[in-house]
């Protein structure tokens, strides 16, 4: 499939129709998704109707928007009115939301065509998409491997060429880690840059929606469309969407890039090698690369696995069998709540709800949740100090290439370690982009991560574009 930039340009100029692009995407899904299981729901009728609306606008001489005719995949924790939205959980099976997420509305207004809803770890809790109640997604590069997670369905759909763009959500790496494992670009924008209205909440102080794409330019175009203030999200930054496509060619000449020891240590040797190659590519483009140590980043994993479950235990209290979703009947309301939640939630979700409930409970609050929140402050200060020395930071996205299905399902702590390099940016609320940068010893894709301070998307995207053009073929 061609790039989103190219598709939109051809559809807007009448060189091809949105319907033909949509039909091609739907046949690609029909051909590939039996083996990959990237999609939980394909909305062929809705997609074709949207494509016809775009084509009618072109015929009338109106501009259908910057993403005209571009097929997109939506992670199934984004609410779509009248279209099933499950968060890959039995507790929401069959639910059709009465409203649509702001990002989905904005994509539609920009002319994009929503092909369907993609698989994820239940409620976005996981790093392999194996925690889906509806079965795992497979990595398009090797069907015996995981696509990463939790946005594994969107990453696989983009990597396999079923769609040009995907939306994911990133709470601890859930966009960047699967993008890296599938060999595509993934963006975790500044917290508040993209509205969370209509995103099924996991950990509200960490969750952020962002694009998954095959090129940096496509990701920039998508983020320009979905970012910008939304009065429906009180944490939305009161600023317009940043201009990104205009700064893609800015390069890194004169920039100082910090290669962060803690974002490389512990990664497999082939991953470390690619990160060092990436540093050299930035140097060749005029950047000055310095080595930095930010010891506080080592605490990210522990802080995250107390803060995120604590917030999740509160957010997921709403699934009580009363207003929507599953209800398992029982004689009184408490028994009904217990029966519903016990039947409706999977193992990992239960584990995190209990961990969070424990971290928040009387007697343990200060020792766990309170301490983790104070460590979060240390981490934010440590990042700020690092950005006094460097304009951008560089590290690995994931410790290894895609691992085999089932390899980590019985050891939650081993699974959690997949997020060790991505979590810090969620705790600080800052920008991070993963770019494919060659392959590992096993031939599977490796991603490198560029990090920047809050609101530095134009600078981070310019560096990502340099890495994209300097990546080994």
């Amino acid at each position: 499939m061609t790039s989103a930039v190219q598709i939109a340009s051809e559809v807007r100029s009448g060189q091809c129709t949105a319907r033909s692009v949509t039909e091609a995407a739907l046949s690609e899904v029909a051909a590939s998704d039996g083996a990959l299981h990237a999609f939980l729901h394909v909305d062929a009728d809705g997609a074709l109707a949207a494509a016809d609306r775009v084509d009618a606008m072109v015929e009338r001489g109106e501009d259908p928007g910057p993403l005209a005719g571009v097929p997109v995949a939506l992670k199934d924790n984004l609410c779509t009115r009248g279209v099933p939205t499950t968060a890959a959980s039995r507790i929401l099976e069959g639910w059709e939301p009465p409203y649509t997420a702001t990002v989905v509305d904005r994509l539609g207004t920009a002319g994009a065509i929503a092909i369907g809803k993609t698989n994820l770890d239940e409620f976005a809790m996981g790093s392999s998409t194996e925690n889906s109640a509806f079965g795992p997604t497979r990595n398009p590069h090797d069907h015996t491997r995981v696509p990463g997670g939790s946005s594994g369905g969107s990453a696989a759909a983009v990597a396999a060429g079923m769609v040009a763009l995907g939306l994911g959500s990133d709470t601890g790496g859930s966009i960047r880690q699967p993008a890296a494992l599938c060999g595509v670009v993934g963006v975790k924008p500044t917290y508040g840059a993209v509205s969370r209205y209509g995103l099924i909440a996991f950990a509200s102080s960490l969750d952020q929606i962002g694009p998954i794409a095959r090129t940096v330019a496509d990701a920039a175009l998508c983020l320009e469309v979905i970012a910008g203030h939304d009065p429906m999200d009180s944490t939305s930054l009161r600023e317009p969407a940043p201009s990104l496509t205009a700064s893609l060619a800015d390069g890194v000449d004169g920039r100082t890039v910090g290669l962060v020891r803690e974002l490389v240590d512990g990664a497999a040797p082939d991953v470390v090698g690619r990160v060092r190659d990436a540093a050299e590519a930035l140097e060749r483009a005029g950047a000055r690369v310095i080595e930095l140590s930010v010891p506080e980043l080592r605490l990210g994993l522990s802080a995250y696995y107390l803060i995120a479950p604590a917030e999740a235990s509160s957010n997921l209290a709403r699934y009580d069998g009363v207003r929507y979703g599953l209800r398992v009947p029982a004689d009184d309301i408490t028994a009904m709540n217990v029966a519903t939640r016990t039947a409706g939630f999977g193992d990992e979700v239960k584990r995190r709800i209990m961990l969070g409930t424990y971290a928040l409970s009387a007697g343990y609050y200060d020792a766990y949740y309170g301490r983790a929140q104070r460590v979060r402050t240390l981490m934010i200060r440590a990042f700020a100090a690092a950005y006094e020395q460097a304009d951008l930071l560089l590290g690995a996205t994931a410790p290894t290439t895609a691992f085999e299905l089932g390899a980590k399902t019985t050891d939650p702590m081993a699974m959690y370690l997949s997020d060790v390099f991505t979590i810090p940016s969620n705790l600080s609320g800052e920008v991070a982009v993963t770019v494919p940068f060659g392959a590992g010893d096993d031939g599977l894709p490796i991603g490198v991560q560029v990090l920047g301070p809050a609101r530095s998307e134009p600078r981070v995207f310019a560096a990502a574009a340099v890495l994209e053009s300097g990546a080994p073929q």
Partner: protein
Amino acid sequence: MTALSRDDVAHVAALARLSLSDEELDRYTGQLQAVLDHAADLEAFDLEGTPATAHPFADRNVVREDTPVACLDRDEVLACAPDEEDHRFSVPRIIGEAP
């Protein structure tokens, strides 16, 4: 950091409105303990005087003009409910004896 007992996990499950089998209690106790053990590294840093961060950006209240706007359609919302009666969510007995 404290050692997590099977009873602690049972207590937390009850608070979270979850029912666990004996096998699940055993399994979750070990798995949750592993996460808490890992979190022991947080004790290594001196946090005296360090404030907590609940949100990545500075706290600010968000207000808007008190202007009426359209809300979700009642019937569409109630159509999502597992049970409804007389335009209201219907639930099993909350207090007192079963009818």
